[in-house]
């Protein structure tokens, strides 16, 4: 009995030690995106900002379909999970199977509540642009709640992009991509010009 108890205590201690160790040595976060130019540049934007300001290692995972992306957003397996995505309210209403309200702001409130309750995902403050889809919509970074628990600093960092990309700025990003510039370079140039990194 005593041996069993001691073993349990040791396992408990080692679990604590390994969790603490994870926090010290660094864990990788995963940003998920669809394979569109816009998706790529915004995911690079988030990855660069987090990495440059916190040192956290970031890996971007691309998906062909929204269904695959949301499956990864629910996964707990290291090899397939994503922790952060960029989403707009039009697509989110479709995911939530809800009808559009009378304004994008109202849609934002509706999908924010749905995602938090049903998907355990938190919407952060919107980037500012509204022209990413065929109807007006609001885009923002989304983070899993469990990630938020372990990385409480992330909202403070990512909210530096809140309102920082208006429609004009977003069109300039798209134009650079259409001209053949790499999404990572486009994102880095923007962040540097904004003095965010």
């Amino acid at each position, binding site marked *: 009995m005593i041996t069993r108890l001691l073993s349990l205590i040791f396992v408990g201690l080692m679990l604590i030690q*390994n969790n603490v160790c994870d926090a*010290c040595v660094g864990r990788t976060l995963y940003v998920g995106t669809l394979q569109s130019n816009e998706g790529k540049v915004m995911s690079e934007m988030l990855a660069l900002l987090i990495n440059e300001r916190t040192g956290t290692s970031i890996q971007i995972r691309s998906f062909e379909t929204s269904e695959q992306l949301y499956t990864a957003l629910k996964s707990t397996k*290291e090899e397939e999970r994503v922790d952060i995505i960029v989403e707009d309210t039009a697509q989110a209403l479709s995911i939530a199977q809800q009808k559009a309200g009378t304004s994008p702001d109202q849609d934002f409130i509706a999908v924010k509540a749905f995602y938090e309750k049903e998907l355990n995902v938190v919407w952060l403050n919107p980037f500012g642009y509204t022209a990413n889809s065929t109807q007006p919509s609001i885009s923002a970074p989304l983070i899993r709640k469990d990630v938020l*628990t372990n990385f409480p600093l992330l909202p403070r960092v990512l909210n530096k992009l809140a309102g920082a990309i208006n429609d004009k700025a977003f069109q300039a990003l798209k134009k650079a991509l259409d001209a053949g510039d790499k999404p990572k370079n486009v994102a880095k140039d923007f962040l540097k010009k904004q003095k*965010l990194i």
Partner: protein
Amino acid sequence: MTIRSYLIWLSLLAWLGIPSSLMASPQTPIGNVVLTEDTVWSGTITIDGVVVVGRKATLTITPGTTILFKRRDVNHDGVGDSEIRVLGGVIAQGSAKQPIVFKSAETKPAPKDWSYLLIFTSGKKNRIEYCQFHDAFSGLQVHFSTALVQDCLFSHNLEGIRFGRAKLTLRHCLINENHIGVRFTRMEGPVEIQYNEINNNQVGIFLVPSGQNIVDFFEPGRTGKPWNEGHLDISANNIRMNSDYNLKLGAKQLWDLKITNNWWGIVTRADIRQTLFDQHRDPDLGRAIIEPTAPQTIVDAGIRQLPANHHATK
């Protein structure tokens, strides 16, 4: 079995001092093994997996030893999993003519091929001298431990050296061509970083409190005096020609830091400021107090009797 659970069982074996049957000869790759007794390495050692130095053991590495890490990335996080995790002690004392080399075993080596030499909650006095670290996620990490690191080369890693709460002396090292040269995550010490040559990294020194603390133990407001006085001494280093910034304060580093008497590669204050990322760039951050600066190159900085095959910027 996940890597974490595997590590837990390896650590448990190390804690209990249970001998492992996985020991291999020096010619055979060593991996997923716990060293439970004092061990001496020499010649060429190849590591494929995790080697844990148990609490009762000390790993001694003799001059001229080369330690190769095979790349394996089981969890697809982009970082090679091979590592040495020291819970006991490590004495790695090379010499100028016979350094100890830690590097990738791959034919086309790249940063992140392997994880790190990690000294974690060690109760012993660890010594890392005349060692060279290449191709790692972090060449060396030290947390909750005591270590003397001197005359070492950190080059072509994602991070040269990272440490958190530690009693650490880092001196006379050459830290170049990494993404981040030196990363310090706790701002607690005592830590001395002196007489190092830190150049041609993307970021020379990155001072960033951990963003993973669920509870924030830092005091709530700025006190008006440098945060690090008395327990973090960064002086008499050459910190220059790092492509993004010579010195960067990370998110949550809200307090002023005193980092004086270093040579930044340039003389005018305005030009030096351009190589720093602190409150001047982001009002949320603290200030890097760099005056007085060293008036010229610190001639004693860098590895003493540098191996002839490596070029240092002097």
